[in-house]
């Protein structure tokens, strides 16, 4: 049953993505991308990634949509131009699809408990995190402690983006 729900949600997402690619009205595209993010968050809940789902809902559907609408307001462009030469991009994309499908065919099937990612490294997190860090949410334990250095990098990425947007968008006294 769980598998069927996940498969259905995934199919729905694929539909929204295709609609997003075909739509030329930029406002509709932004709305569709918000819907895409909410679907992604739902799929993530179904996949037990509750922390990620919460973040995707607030960032993908929330912050990103606000930023996109703000940018559209400032840029004005309502309609994207139609495609001029769609064949080269299509060929490039197909080559990459081929490489991806080739690679994933050799990966373990969905929900295989003997897959390498379930038997190596992770058992220590699941069995010992509570004892070693005192935090029952394993995601928080790994995020803030075991791989805390990644999260420092992540915070630095956010800071980089913030300082970068300030540098780019702050009005200067002699701005043009």
């Amino acid at each position: 049953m769980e598998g069927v729900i996940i498969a259905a949600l995934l199919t729905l997402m694929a539909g929204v993505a295709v609609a997003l690619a075909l739509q030329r009205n930029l406002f509709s595209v932004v709305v569709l991308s918000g819907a895409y993010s909410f679907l992604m968050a739902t799929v993530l809940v179904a996949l037990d990634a509750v922390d990620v789902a919460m973040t995707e809902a607030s960032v993908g559907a929330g912050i990103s949509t606000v930023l996109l609408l703000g940018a559209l307001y400032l840029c004005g462009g309502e309609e994207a131009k139609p495609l001029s030469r769609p064949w080269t991009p299509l060929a490039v994309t197909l080559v990459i699809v081929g490489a991806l499908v080739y690679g994933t065919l050799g990966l373990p099937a969905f929900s295989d408990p003997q897959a390498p990612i379930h038997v190596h490294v992770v058992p220590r997190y699941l069995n010992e995190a509570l004892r070693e860090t005192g935090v029952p949410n394993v995601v928080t334990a790994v995020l803030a402690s075991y791989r805390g250095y990644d999260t420092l990098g992540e915070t630095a990425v956010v800071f980089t983006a913030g300082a970068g947007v300030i540098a780019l968008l702050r009005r200067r006294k002699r701005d043009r």
Partner: protein
Amino acid sequence: MSPVQLAALAVVVPLIAAPAAVLVRGATAAWAIATAACGFAFAAALMLATDVAAHGTLSYALGSWPAPWGIEYRIDALSAFVLVLVSGIATVVAAFARRSAAAELPADQLYLFYAMFCLCAAGLLGMTATGDAFNLFVFMEIASLSSYVLIALGRDRRALVAAYQYLILGTIGATFFVIGVGMLYLATGTLNLADMAGRLAGVPDSRPVLAALAFITVGVSLKLALFPLHLWLPNAYAYAPSAVTAFLAATATKVSIYVLLRFYFSVFGAQVVVEDMPMPQILLVLSLVAIASASLVAIWQTDLKRLFAYSSVAQVGYITLGISLASPDGLTAAIVHLFNHGVTKGALFLLIGGIAMRAGGAATLEAVRGLGRTMPLTSLGIVIAGLSLIGIPGTAGFISKWFLVLAAMQAGHWWLAGFVVLTSLIAVAYVWRFVEAAYLAEPGPAAPRAGEAPAAMLAFAWLLVGGCIWFGLDSSLTVAGARRAALLLLGGAP
């Protein structure tokens, strides 16, 4: 505090300098913080390099969690070598930037410029030091996002378009890298590079591994501007502020090459890269095309920054050519050239920064007419660095070309040795265009009149010019370091 802690501090100190620069807000204070942090990283990198040369590979568990559960910093002969290059260039460019950036950027932006510069340096250093595949991605993004901003800060409006195009291609590259890492993770269950290398042998199905190799190669090649994925580079280098061009040209592509070497030889291993996939052949062909085409395009450029940007694409070709030989000599040549070309290009773009300041705009061939008289030291520096680019004996460039020719002959490719020598003649042609304008032409109406660039800029540029000569006369340090790194890469596990 033990010297081992320097492994973390060399990266973290520049990272901390960025928010500190934003807090103080003053241009001079931010500059001092940035320069001091980069200088500290340089000192730490030198100490790490000596330590690694004496005691072998150094492993540092961040958060005291042992790998593969925690993130590991792993400093070996190769990463120490690249750390020294990146932090050294960062220190010189940061010191140089005080006058250069003040001339090219609005005063109230300067503290943000230094913060971005520190983040970019920290990102590149973190990519080099880390022994964890995902941590590498995180620091790659810190370096990339900050370099998009640094490029967009250029005065010309085309800097914005260049930054946008680099953002798109850079993000595609980084995402390809993450897809590759994801496949490796799904196949092995680990993110630690050394652990991954050990477990790859036991992976029953080779398809994900080969796909991962392809994705990581394409992703990293976008970042290191391997032909034909170099399209973002000329515009980005041409329109970025001078100090940024110098820093990115000398370090950013070099660190990406380091990542490629690391994955090819420390993770996948020669077995997968050379025998299961025709990577050497592909790299060889792309390198040859890159060298020939980019050198030829460079000849027709009228803007000095663009000219040397195309030259960078060609020089990256020489490095990947060395990698494609996959022999101790070939890798030594690649790693030595990575260093020597970094120093040479750093020197060139810093000197061009001086010209741009005096010319009050782009350093075009028109603007440098008669420069031999108006800015004699700058012109002489460009000529010396240009000779190093060509590979004239007595300059750093000669050492790397020499090893490349040796490696080609050892592999039995006499035609390849001839190709290297022949394409160096094309480099003569584009360096000659500068010499012709600077020494043989009368000063034009656009020529800078104010004389030599400020001593505070010229001195640091000449420090790198001195490096071009020094590493050409005494190659013991660079070649020994590169050879150790090459043998380590070919010797199996990192």
